[in-house]
């Protein structure tokens, strides 16, 4: 029979849960799949990392465009929001000045969409990590 927890234990457990609910989605956003990995969901974390990372890298290799903050028009701003979802992948790409976009290639347009979608998928995985942290999902 489980021992009844003291009030201090309950407060401590709640604090740990709350801190994980903050750390997991941020880690998951910065490094794809990390939100799951720090909660010991190894296979899910690894699959999410591979999926988001592969889509982003393939997008850059296809010479897709990585949007900056001041894109000019509304669609560019939306592209920026999508790209930003990739977290550290986005920042590294911007720092290295990759993802300039080759408008003469049809595949570059696919690459641009790959990069945006990988960011959006990463946001989905970060939200999933949050759901696990608050106990909404196993």
């Amino acid at each position: 029979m489980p021992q009844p927890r003291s009030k201090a234990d309950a407060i401590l457990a709640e604090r740990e849960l709350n801190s994980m609910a903050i750390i997991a989605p941020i880690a998951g956003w910065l490094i794809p799949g990390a939100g799951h990995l720090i909660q010991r969901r190894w296979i899910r974390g690894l699959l999410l990392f591979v999926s988001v990372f592969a889509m982003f890298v393939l997008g850059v290799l296809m010479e897709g465009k990585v949007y900056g903050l001041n894109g000019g028009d509304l669609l560019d701003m939306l592209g920026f929001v999508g790209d930003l979802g990739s977290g550290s992948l986005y920042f590294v790409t911007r720092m290295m000045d990759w993802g300039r976009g080759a408008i003469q290639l049809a595949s570059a347009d696919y690459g641009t969409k790959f990069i945006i979608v990988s960011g959006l998928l990463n946001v989905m995985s970060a939200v999933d990590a949050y759901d696990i942290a608050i106990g909404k999902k196993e």
Partner: protein
Amino acid sequence: MQVSHFSAAIIFAFFASIVFGITQRTAPRDMVLYGAKCFAFFAAGTLLASWAMWVIKH
């Protein structure tokens, strides 16, 4: 790196389906089934849209 439209669509479908499967279902078995279903819908949708565009063109 250059890929055909179909290859790009299949690669896209593959990775997006993995993420959809993991994030939208709770049990591992349901994740696999949902991921496979999403992939099938993506691929079938691509083929249908391609043929629809061919019909419109001709």
